[in-house]
């Protein structure tokens, strides 16, 4: 393996680890209504201090808009150190000790402090050949560049995905297609910009979804609400989701949008959003940002999201993904989105994307070197 393929290998390895252990038949588990605790038998005693979803706090009532609907407006974050898929061997609910360990591992500030305690590299200048005294475990970037949040999900789950396995229920065919994709990407790492991930191309991030999932940083959302529209401003990457509440039917399936076509309605105090007509170029959830290998078939993809205001500082966000072309059955996840007082900053993704030029010209340099039969040091 060349060193520069490590990053891709990591993604592949994570993916493989996820798909290898997925049972072929996964019972679908729809999210329980917010406030309902997990079955007592499934929850270790130690986790009871952190309820699965906060019931309404005493003395707190759901704030409402002028038309009487729950007010979801404000700034929210879904940053978490809890992974999308459940680590192998982990139980559905983590103990307090496991959550503390997860937070310590995932906390970049903790890592920064640990780095500092090990000693900083020599500050002597002018030497352009010396190897750094230490290396980051994550993509060779200092901890300062990351902002994954400090906390595990407060529902005490060991993964965002809920249900018995906590894994993406890929079909055997999907596993093969993902393997084929990895091989395709190995052979065509950067033939042109269209061969790179959607995120590098500033086209789509998992943060906007749907489902809306956390990423490395800037996991901030701002929700605006009127009687007939909910708009979600997504910091990454400057996206706005428009959820129409006017009862109109979905747009034509001939029109495929990156974030699909979202229609919402209220079920009691829960905003339920159904999204279809998602562009297949979005790629696989948890399987890469979407490159020009073998795109998933998203013709039948449907995402159902449920937004419930469960506390002054919490929207319980639940989602179910259906796509029989990729999954053996529906799968669901839950993230308590927390109120934040941090402003949402503009993320004009392509204003200075030097990286794309560097990546493409780097690939050309690799090819030239290979043609000359030279091996770089």
């Amino acid at each position, binding site marked *: 393996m060349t060193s520069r393929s490590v990053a891709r290998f990591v993604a592949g390895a994570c993916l493989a680890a996820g798909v290898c252990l997925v049972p072929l038949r996964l019972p679908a588990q729809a999210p329980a209504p917010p406030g309902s605790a997990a079955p007592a038998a499934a929850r270790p005693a130690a986790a009871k201090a952190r309820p699965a979803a906060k019931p309404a706090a005493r003395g707190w009532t759901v704030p409402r808009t002028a038309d009487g609907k729950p007010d979801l407006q404000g700034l929210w974050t879904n940053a978490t150190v809890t992974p999308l898929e459940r680590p192998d061997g982990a139980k559905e609910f983590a103990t307090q000790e496991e959550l503390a360990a997860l937070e310590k591992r995932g906390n970049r500030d903790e890592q920064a402090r640990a780095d500092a305690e090990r000693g900083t590299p020599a500050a002597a200048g002018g030497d352009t050949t010396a190897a750094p005294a230490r290396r980051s475990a994550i993509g060779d970037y200092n901890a300062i560049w990351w902002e994954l949040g400090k906390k595990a999900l407060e529902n005490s789950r060991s993964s965002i995905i809920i249900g018995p396995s906590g894994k993406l229920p890929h079909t055997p065919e999907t596993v093969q297609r993902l393997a084929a994709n990895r091989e395709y990407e190995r052979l065509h790492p950067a033939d042109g910009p269209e061969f790179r991930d959607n995120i590098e191309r500033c086209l789509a991030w998992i943060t906007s979804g749907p489902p809306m999932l956390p990423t490395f940083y800037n996991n901030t959302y701002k929700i605006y609400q009127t009687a007939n529209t909910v708009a979600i401003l997504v910091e990454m990457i400057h996206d706005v989701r428009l959820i129409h509440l006017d009862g109109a039917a979905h747009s034509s399936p001939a029109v495929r949008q990156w974030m699909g076509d979202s229609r919402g309605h209220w079920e009691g105090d829960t905003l339920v959003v159904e999204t279809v007509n998602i562009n297949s170029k979005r790629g696989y959830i948890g399987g890469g940002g979407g490159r020009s290998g073998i795109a998933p078939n998203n013709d039948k993809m449907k995402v159902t999201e449920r937004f419930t205001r469960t506390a002054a500082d919490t929207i319980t966000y639940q989602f179910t993904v259906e796509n029989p072309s990729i999954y053996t059955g529906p799968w669901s996840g839950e993230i308590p989105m927390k109120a934040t007082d941090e402003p949402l900053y503009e993320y004009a993704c392509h204003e200075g994307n030097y990286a794309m030029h560097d*990546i493409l010209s780097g690939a050309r340099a690799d090819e030239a070197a290979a043609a000359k039969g030279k091996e770089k040091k």
Partner: protein
Amino acid sequence: MKHTRASIVAGACLMLAGVPVLAHHAFQAEFDANRPVTLRGTVTKMEWINPHAWIHIDVKEADGKITSWMIEAGTPNTLYRRGFTKDSLAPGSVIVVQGYQAKNGSNHANGRDVTLPDGRTLFMGSSGTGAPGDKPEKKPGG
């Protein structure tokens, strides 16, 4: 290297299972892990742009020749939240950068670590993140 890579894979799987790649772009696609660089230079400009901020520095080589480098930093949004602004590294500031050169051989490098001449590592102080302007309440007594 083999051990390092194994660690990278294990660590990344552990913490980034829900994340498709390792940064806005994959580090290994842009930078060459076999070309580590240590650069002592004077800041000439801070490009405060997404998806990554870039720090421009002039590096004086051993023979006195000045070479300009561009150092890739993090996303400005996150840096700003940590108390780091466009003005935190004013032109004329001297910094030491440890990182990796771009695969294309240009004078671009990622800013793996940024250190001040007195040895203080930028962002990684003993309290909070150590970022300029960072609130020092993160550590008891800090």
